[in-house]
């Protein structure tokens, strides 16, 4: 009953015309920001922040939050159509979404991502509504030892992204190496910057994601322009998923939502890791993992559900503890602080209209997003009809603007070019970029938590197995490694056997 009463308070607060208007503006902006490569919610929210001086704190946060979760919807659009990840978390959508688009199934991919986004967001919201106070405390149980074990599991999962775990592993290591660039968190020692002060806070994640997927793909496509697929006409029917698509993607959405909801509540892990983990899970569970990377619909549905679920549950630590999970969340907190509201454990009781109004606005916002995104699919698809000679220069401009906007640094544009060339070379050698990206995201977190766990345990490695949550995750990691080895040995044996048989006949 409490929940219903609270939602009632929320409804009253959220259903005013001003709130609805700002919610609409927020999600609309979010969608566009998400679609535009590189211009992520971070840039958009920092641009909008000054405006929030003139509006009340409730409407300000409703609008900014709308940008935040709206961008998760839009993020995969460019990834699917153009292999351009707008945000790091939508890089996963490139892996199977882009092949789907190349097979003429862009409409289905976009339709499923919209539905998956909605499913994920609603799952995240349900958790937010019913369990906020409990999961906030649960997230705090995760100390550095637990985080390290979780990251280790993530790295092992990343190896499975490639068809060859060895090549995947090599890319993970390269990603880890690139992530070492920058300032060491424990000692402040500056590593591998070669005297460039721009590198002292590390390579830009956005530049890396855009370079290794987007720019590399453009370089590759310049030689192999193929316009044949663009002439087909897109009918409403061709956009709708068929029965098989639904059968495969619905369970994936459920799993993705669960994974995303979990990761969202852990401050500092965020949407990217959850979508990678959801992808790895789907690939592991699939009867036929070979389909992945070639347009498997589960590979689009699960990560999309995951990153939207985590975008919602990420508000749990932010609002209930005042601990922002990522920089964008910190910015949204900043908007509240500007208005003199300090988020913390008392927020729910001291500002019930704000908290519940915000939650109801999330629900409204997500419904608006679905209503808004489905008719837009046709418009987005028509992007593919633009001739490459016009499309590519435009994309490159967008990439440059987007990368620049993250920290107003020209250096990042050079980075994206360099990474793009690296990505092209890796592509020629048939290395997958996704494990590299995950290695890059997890590397610094893993190192930080490993060293911190050891500092806290005064140097004893036992801390990783003495703590029950950490131990459980390590056991799962161990099983995953065994599984990878076993399945690649089995594949090798099968290949040998077929080779022998064909030799005998």
């Amino acid at each position, binding site marked *: 009953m409490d929940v219903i009463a609270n939602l009632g308070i929320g409804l009253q607060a959220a259903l005013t015309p001003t709130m609805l208007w700002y919610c609409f503006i927020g999600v609309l902006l979010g969608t566009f920001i998400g679609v535009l490569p590189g211009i992520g919610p971070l840039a958009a929210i920092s641009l909008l922040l000054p405006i929030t001086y003139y509006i009340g704190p409730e409407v300000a946060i409703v609008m900014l939050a709308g940008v935040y979760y709206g961008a998760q919807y839009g993020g995969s659009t460019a990834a699917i159509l153009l292999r351009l990840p707008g945000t790091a978390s939508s890089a996963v959508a490139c892996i199977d979404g882009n092949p789907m688009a190349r097979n003429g199934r862009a409409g289905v991919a976009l339709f499923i991502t919209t539905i998956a986004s909605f499913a994920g967001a609603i799952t995240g919201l349900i958790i937010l509504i019913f369990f906020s106070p409990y999961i906030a405390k649960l997230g705090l149980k995760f100390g550095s030892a637990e985080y390290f074990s979780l990251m280790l599991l993530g790295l092992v999962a990343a190896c499975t992204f490639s068809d060859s775990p060895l090549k995947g592993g090599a890319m993970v290591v390269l990603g880890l190496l690139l992530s070492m660039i920058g300032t060491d968190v424990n000692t402040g020692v500056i590593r591998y910057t070669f005297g460039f002060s721009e590198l002292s806070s590390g390579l830009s994640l956005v530049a890396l994601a855009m370079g290794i997927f987007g720019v590399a793909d453009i370089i590759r496509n310049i030689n192999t322009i193929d316009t044949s697929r663009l002439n087909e006409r897109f009918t409403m029917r061709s956009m709708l998923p068929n029965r098989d698509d639904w059968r495969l993607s619905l369970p994936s959405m459920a799993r993705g939502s669960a994974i995303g909801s979990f990761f969202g509540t852990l401050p500092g892990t965020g949407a990217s890791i959850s979508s990678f983990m959801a992808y790895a899970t789907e690939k592991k569970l699939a009867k036929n993992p070979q389909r992945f990377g070639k347009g498997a619909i589960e590979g689009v549905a699960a990560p999309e559900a995951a990153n939207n679920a985590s975008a919602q549950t990420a508000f749990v630590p932010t609002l209930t503890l005042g601990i922002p999970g990522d920089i964008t969340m910190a910015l949204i907190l*900043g908007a509240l602080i500007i208005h003199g509201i*300090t988020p913390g454990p008392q927020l729910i009781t001291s500002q019930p209209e704000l908290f519940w109004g915000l939650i109801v606005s999330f629900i409204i916002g997500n419904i608006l997003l679905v209503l808004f995104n489905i008719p837009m699919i046709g418009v987005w698809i028509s992007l593919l009809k633009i001739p490459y000679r016009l499309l590519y220069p435009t994309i490159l401009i967008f990439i440059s603007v987007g990368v620049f906007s993250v920290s107003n640094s020209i250096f990042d544009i050079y980075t994206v070019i360099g990474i793009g060339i690296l990505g092209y070379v890796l592509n020629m050698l048939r290395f997958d970029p996704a494990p590299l990206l995950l290695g890059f995201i997890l590397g610094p977190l893993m190192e930080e938590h490993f060293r911190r766990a050891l500092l*806290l345990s005064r140097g004893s490695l036992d801390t990783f197995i003495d703590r029950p949550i950490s131990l459980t995750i390590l056991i799962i990691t161990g099983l995953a490694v065994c599984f990878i080895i076993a399945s690649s040995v089995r594949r090798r044996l099968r290949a040998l056997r077929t080779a022998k048989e064909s030799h005998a006949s």
Partner: protein
Amino acid sequence: MRLTTPRALLVLAAAAPCSLLLGTQAVADNYPSQPINLIVGASAGGTTDAMAREVAEGLAQKYDVPTVVDNRPGAGASIATEAVANADPDGYTLLVAYTSHTLNESLFHELPYDPVEDFSPISLLGEVSSILLSRPDLEFDSLQDMLDYAAEQPDGITFGVGGLGSSLHMETLKFIQESEVVGYEIPYNGTAPAIADLIGSHVDVMFAPFAAAMPLVESGDANAIAVTSPERMPNLDDIPSINETLSDYPTTYGWFGLLGPAGMDPAIVERLNADVTEIMHGESGADLLEREGAEPIDISAEAFAAFIVDDVERWKAIAEAGDIEKQ
């Protein structure tokens, strides 16, 4: 038609020396006639950014020119600081600096600027202090209580450090030096993750900024042990200050200030100093400072310049005593 452009240029060229003859007074009178850029070495949403936006908002209203807040985070604010050091001292590019401005000199070998020589200090916006917190399941009656507890622990206690090379880091160093407690610094990438580990009881104590600490103390998710200000804070008078227990504890402040490139017209500096002081004394400026546990101050540009010189020396002494290796 072709001749018009060169002719216009000739006229301009002839006029240029005249305008130089008019001297600095005219420049100050015309100031500001174009948009003012406030460069901030911190990302949007933080305290420094909030200060910058308060100043930007106030200046825009007073001068009726657009003021732009340009966030250039990274490298301990030195990227933003360098940009201002190399800008024209015309008063249109200003820096909203924080403690790192005077601290960086003790942390880096080769700063691309000199925090004293390359700047025209304009105005000190505010001074903030921090609160020593303990994890929720560790309650102490006094600071002495905490020191006794730490002495009993075979491995000492752990100090969460929110951001290496931050003023909170230096505070921790200084506290460990002065109190001679057996403490281990556990570095975090910013204050938020350090606080998360404190309320999750993974780390024992930490120095936290006032604004972040208060809600947690009120809800019991963390315990306040002492404040770093020389006297008890007005809105927190049941929390003792550290120097009530450690008598000659050198109190330090984190600070926020407005600076321009070296060689600014003193008339413009004076004017900005007066106007910015007024902005921070205004209702929203004072509110902002109060949330950070600070009060508006009123000091001249010269006094602020002296403050910066002293502050550089102060950090140097702390960093040297703490064996901080320069990068």
